[in-house]
């Protein structure tokens, strides 16, 4: 995939607030962390997912929504603890399971992995994406 050159900036809302910057990893299919991501490495292990074999660690994970078992909360929290989680996650729709995992990890380890609900159209894998906090406390997502 080629990186789009046009810069953008758009507003979003935080499910968990924080700042992050990283290379976008964009999926049109939701990824379940439970059974989908190896918490020890961040590697995608879901054989039915197009991202199989790629790694979410340190990336800005972009997908329409979360998916699957509530055990994904534990896997995300464990990945954040181990430093194998994405740097931040952008979703089109809020996800209760990922929100719980992110909040628990912040509560326990003081690590804030921003979880943002925003328009994800036009973001492609490889884009350098920055998540910041706006003046009103909302999320600001921009391509660097």
């Amino acid at each position, binding site marked *: 995939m080629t990186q789009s050159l046009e810069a953008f900036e758009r507003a979003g809302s935080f499910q968990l607030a924080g700042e992050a910057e990283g290379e976008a990893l964009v999926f049109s299919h939701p990824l379940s962390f439970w059974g989908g991501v190896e918490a020890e490495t961040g590697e995608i292990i879901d054989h039915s997912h197009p991202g199989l074999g790629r790694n979410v660690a340190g990336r800005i994970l972009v997908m329409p929504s979360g998916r699957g078992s*509530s055990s994904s*909360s*534990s896997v995300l*929290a*464990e990945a954040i603890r181990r430093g194998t989680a994405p740097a931040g996650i952008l979703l089109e729709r809020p996800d*209760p399971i990922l*929100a719980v995992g992110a*909040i628990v990890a912040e*509560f326990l380890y003081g690590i804030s992995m921003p979880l943002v609900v925003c328009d994800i159209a036009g973001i492609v894998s490889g884009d350098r994406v920055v998540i910041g906090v706006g003046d009103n406390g909302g999320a600001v997502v921009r391509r660097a």
Partner: protein
Amino acid sequence: MALELTTHDQSMLDGGQGPSAAAAMKILVAFSNAVGANSLLDISGAHIDGCLYHGKAGLDFVERLVEGGGRVQVPTTLNVGSFDLIHPGMVKMQVAEEVPARRLMKAHLELGCQATFTCAPYQTRFRPQFGEQIAWGESNAIVFANSVIGARTNRYGDFIDLCCAMTGRAPAWGLHLSENRRGRILFELDEAAHEPNDSLFVGVGLIVGQANGDRVPVIAGLPQPRDEDQLKALGAASATTGAVALFHAVGITPEAATLDQAFQGRAPEETIRIKRADIDQALARLSAVPDGAPLAAISLGTPHFSHEEWMRLLPMLREVAPGRGIPIYVNTGRATLTRLRDEGALDGMEAFGLIPVADTCTYVTSILENLDGVVMTNSGKWAHYAPGNIGVTVAFAEMKDCIRSAAVGHVVRGAA
């Protein structure tokens, strides 16, 4: 619409009830916002599926709540853990794993949870009543509470079940609300399919779970069950192959006296017919071996064996008298086990190979001594998960066939 909190909710969030309640409320608020709830509601009980050790984050969370002086605000039962605390030494685990796994069970008790360690809290004195609002984890318990009892819970899981217990609150959304409990999809059971043995209920459950998605299913034409254990088996199977949290069985379950009541006066969005052949096919998929395969063990009681099920099993054991030393593991709640011991019901039963297991389950931890050969079970849920979880080869059958097979040492099915 935004989530509205009561003064009490807000005070909890602001730390008025201590740091643990504040943390639990913060997580609950974020969850409630994500599911689009407008408010929280009071719950009268909780069931926590948090005692199986899956990693450090899970234990750290409970430890932090303990350190913050947290206590559960409603009667709270615990699901199975990784150990049988009643029968020490039964579970084989490395020390590095054993220490945190044991601590996880104990830490929950320090929060004021009850030491039930059962996946069937509906068999304990904490069983909820019709219409009660509760927050339960564990898929079979959730579907039983909603469907068979008519209590109200969503599918709660990791961390959030405990946050509900710590605050006594749950988001007012989903199956807590009457309108969302209406049937959406109709399963019509073929007349010819009626043979009201245990397998029929398992088979229907497997099919309903697979075809259902997350819409509330209504089953018509199901024969009257012998007891609630047959509905337990149906629900557990449906929550194994699918995400079923509530089913209605017309003329059987409490919110489905009639088809019309089950659908709350509306029409089904879809109708699916279940034929005998569909059930046979679904059940056949649970068995990886043909009749005659050599047997390593029997595992019963997933979900946990009820007292009534024991009362069917024990006479069967005496009658068939299996004497080959093939272990017959039976998972059950510690309260049920205590009652059986008090009644003297288990005296002498070890001669037939009976090994009761409490507090845990034979498919989540290493209990089975010998995995060399087939393990037979009458549980659709065990048959589905055990091959992946503990690497066994499974044959599914009626309980009577399991016991007869133990007596001859290989798989036999079709007992008269």
